[in-house]
């Protein structure tokens, strides 16, 4: 679907609004203990820089945003093609322009630290060490040079919204899965548009919460995401980059078992995994196995492993191999519209106690075997109905034609 790529709507330029506040209001607010929203925005804008570099062709913007993280001109931004140039221009809020050099990059988070040629200055900057954590529902501001609207000698744009969710990033750009899978702040402002990446997400006091990321689509819904990487996710990485080093790929942090459990060890055979999301139906159960003893049966749909949803065969395997071979593993199956939970242990010779929460979970429920058999019977019947005509359809036409041909030939002779 090639719909609108960028969302201009809901683009609230709060900065302008704040600048236009009547003087009277500003007077009353100046007496307040906390600074006004305007002060927060202005203070954050001073710590945000515009970056101009490579690009400008085939829809690739030649600009992005960065934030000052030291008084000596360290700039944190996203790693992108924009940085692929010897003439990387960084424009400060006060209008000064510098050519920056890249100190280090973090390929997983796709971040880079730049250094401006400044010594012993006292630039306004965000203090990463003192960054607070945000909560879902908290009001935030996204400060960036999105769409290069602030291309002149003017402060960058501010958008307001709330933190919608704090969630692991599961996103892609085109067919490429984003490398970073840590928690991000999802925001309900249209924060991540072209040029915004590297901008600041701040709270209403102007304190840094996170760094606006590149434009990505959610893997789950395909929708464009608006998000920022929280400070605590990159603060250590920034120290490495500031030291002029490239951050090593930490590798996946998903827990892997030393002696992984397998479905076969539990006695479960799933249906052949032929579709992108083959529903994880149990094809057969090995009689003398943990699954067999626990009463799992063919046609059960294996929907949860240790409470984690497993909507496909591959997800079941993913979940199972995370467990050690000696672990108890809690499995839920759907059978006749009821959720049935069992706990299996591949190495235990005796059946484990049922751990089901409600009455429907009990496998000792005498109704089950009979009911299941009935269901199987019905299923088989339905298959017959559905398949038979299709087969007849194909086969008998061929036969009919063949028969015709066969009979036709003597007639021609």
């Amino acid at each position, binding site marked *: *679907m090639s*719909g609108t790529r960028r969302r201009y*709507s*809901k683009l609230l330029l709060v900065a302008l609004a704040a600048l236009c506040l009547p003087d009277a209001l500003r007077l*009353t*607010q100046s*007496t*307040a*203990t*906390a600074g006004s*929203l305007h002060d927060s925005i202005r203070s954050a804008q001073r710590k945000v820089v515009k970056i101009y570099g490579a690009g400008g062709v085939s829809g690739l913007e030649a600009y992005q945003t960065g934030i000052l993280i030291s008084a000596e001109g360290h700039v944190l931004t996203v790693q992108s093609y924009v940085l692929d140039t010897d003439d990387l221009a960084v424009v400060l809020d006060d209008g000064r322009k510098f050519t920056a050099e890249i100190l280090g990059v973090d390929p997983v988070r796709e971040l880079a630290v730049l250094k401006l040629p400044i010594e012993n200055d006292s630039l306004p900057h965000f203090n990463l060490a003192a960054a607070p954590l945000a*909560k*879902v*529902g908290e*009001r935030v501001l996204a400060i960036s040079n999105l769409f290069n609207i602030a291309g002149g000698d003017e402060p960058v744009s501010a958008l307001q*919204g*709330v933190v*919608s*969710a*704090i*969630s692991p990033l599961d996103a892609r750009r085109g067919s490429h899965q984003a490398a970073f899978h840590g928690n991000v702040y*999802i925001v*309900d402002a249209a924060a991540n548009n072209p040029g915004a990446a590297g901008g600041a997400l701040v709270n*209403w006091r102007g304190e840094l919460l996170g760094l606006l990321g590149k434009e990505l689509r*959610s*893997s*789950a*819904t395909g*929708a*464009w995401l608006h998000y920022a990487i929280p400070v605590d996710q990159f603060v250590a990485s920034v120290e490495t980059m500031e030291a002029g080093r490239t951050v090593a790929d930490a590798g996946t942090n998903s827990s892997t078992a030393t002696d992984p459990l397998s479905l076969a060890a539990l006695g479960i055979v799933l249906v052949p995994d032929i579709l*992108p*999301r083959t*529903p*994880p139906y149990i094809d057969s159960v090995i009689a003398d196995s943990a699954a067999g003893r626990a009463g799992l049966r063919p046609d059960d*749909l294996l*929907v*949860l492993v240790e409470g984690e*949803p497993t*909507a*496909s065969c591959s997800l079941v395997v993913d979940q199972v191999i995370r467990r050690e071979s000696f672990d108890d593993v809690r499995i*839920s199956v*759907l059978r006749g*519209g*009821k*959720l049935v939970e069992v706990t299996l242990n591949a190495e235990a010779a005796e059946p484990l106690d049922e751990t089901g929460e409600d*009455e*429907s979970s009990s496998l000792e429920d005498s109704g089950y075997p009979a009911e299941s058999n009935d269901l199987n019977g019905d299923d088989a019947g339905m298959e017959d109905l559905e398949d038979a*005509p*299709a087969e*007849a*359809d194909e086969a*008998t*036409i061929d036969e*009919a*034609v063949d028969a*015709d*041909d066969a*009979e*036709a030939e003597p*007639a021609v002779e």
Partner: protein
Amino acid sequence: MRFLLSLAICLTTAGYAAAAGADLDELEQQAIAAAVAAAEKSVVQIRTIGGIDQLEGQSLAQGPTTGSIISEDGLVVSSAFNFAQQPTSILVRLPDGRQRSARIVGRDDNRMLVLLQVETSDELPAAEPAPLDAVRPGDWSIALGRSFNPEEVSVSVGVVSALNRMHGRAIQTDANVSATNYGGPLIDLEGRVLGILVPMAPQAPGAGEANVTAGSEFYDSGIGFAVPLSHILSVVDRWVEEVDLERGLLGIGLKPGNPHATAPIVANVWPRSPAAVAGWKTGDRIVEINGVKIETQTALRFQTTPHYAGDKLAVTIRRGSGDAAKEIETEVTLTDKLPSFLHPFLGVLPMRSAKTADEPKDDHDGAAKSAEDATGEKKPSDEKAKPDEKFEGLAIRAVWPDSPADKAGLRAGDRIIRLGEKKIGDLDAATAELNAKSPGDELKVVAKREDEELEFDVELAELPENVLDAVDLNAGDDKDAIDLSDLGDPKLQTLKLPEMSQTARYLQPPANGPAPGLLIWLGDGKPETAEALAADWQRTCVRDRLVLLIPEPADAGGWTNDDMEYLARLLQTAGSRWRIDPRRIVVAGEGKGGQLAYALALRGRKLIRGVAVIDSPLPRTLEVPENNPNERLAVLSVETQNTPLSLLIRKDLKKFDVAGYPVTQIVRRGEESRDATLDGATRAKIGRWIDGLDRL
């Protein structure tokens, strides 16, 4: 004194405001957090298993989605968008982390919702509905979802943008609404549920199936919709009982015009629709629905769109104009599906062209002549400048036995000059007039017999499904016009389309005469089969004036879907090359050829008037569309007795019948099907069926 007091109050207020102003942001923040905390207990995460990956070429989201608990016994409402993949199994994760299986109770096709029943033995926390009368645009509204993180709802904050959007079905908000929170609640600042978030787009009144993804392209745009929970709760009992709630249809077309400024005047009433049952007629103006005055088409839609099929509306219509105008109170019961359109049948076969009868004697050597005709040159003789320019009405070639026309006393040779109020000059005018009628309608037919004008009252019937006997058609063998005894060997010629690898072979009738019909036979592509077909069909082609066109598949192995493009072009070319009679274009085939014939006929309904298949079931991938007044299509199925496909074929024919098409069945005895073509009797029947396709 008073001034001082006012000043004091002013100052106090100002001082208070200053103090509070500083905390206002904080207070709002707290209020939002409190509202979310109050509402999140009834927001569930839904996971689906199985189903399709794509809908109309669009990839469907496969991640977790959101639902809202609306009753303590486990009814959950969600957006139909979340179930577009038609999942086989559904899991609902309750806010406390417990997983439950769920099943779909029903759908609401008018508001794009799905109702689920969660298996539960204990009471679940149901959402509290917000009283809608107090809600105003500008009020805070918060959209909640549970797709990102099962432990914590996602939050988007905005305001109520408008009420009664989408013709009175939805609240509009500027909070971010997308697949991340479809099915979740839109709540007010007290944590009460205003509505359930759904994608929604205005639906054209005549649109077919409700599209569950329509409106999703507006995601996160500041335009989001929520169906009021108070509405859902008001219909939930009925929903559980009726399973699916459908859009309610009236069955009328409106006079065209700007919908916001044009009065709703009935342009046509669909036969047997709720409006027809209520007695509405063309020209009626709708003036009031359920006590609400209706000024425009838009106002009408605001009154009808929120209703479901089965709802009763009290509608006042005004009929007539000026002093003669009278207001009529009617009651209509909306329906979910309008009955299929059935073409009416008068029972006459029109004369094909006035001049034919005089000329065909010259055409004994038609085959030889037609060979040169194949160069595509036109003969000057059959030009459109008819000798009889003066108005003569529509001449009747034959009257269908036992038809309304027969019963009323019309005869071959009569000329119809008037149908109802309409003057009839030719076949097109008569067809157009009849297309607007239905079986059962009464019609006054005025015809000329010799110089006498006669009036006939007929009650129109349904199109016949029998094939006429030869004797009923005046163009039978007994007519001496053409000598069919000595036709010689059929001369097959070849036709090749530019840029197409396939060739087609054809047999054409003698050049001079009325526009011929076209029979496209989808055979096995072998030359010997084509020869045999030509030999069999030669008499019929000459007598009934029929071009027999036998295309061959591109692949020697047989017909594939790739041949469709070729056949569509071939059809176009043939139409102009022979100036085919548009009422007698038939595509036919046996077995797989018949299946392709079905595919071609359903795709080319604008051109093809008949499909004849021999022992062919409908291909699995084809759906039978509703019959359409302006695209007549007749179905003929020849079935070998005791064929194993019989059951399947009859099921398919039933589908055509239900959709409103005239379906003719011929059963041939098994032992007759001994060659690749057809036995003579069956072939003759097909010929007469084709010859009768221009019946009215």
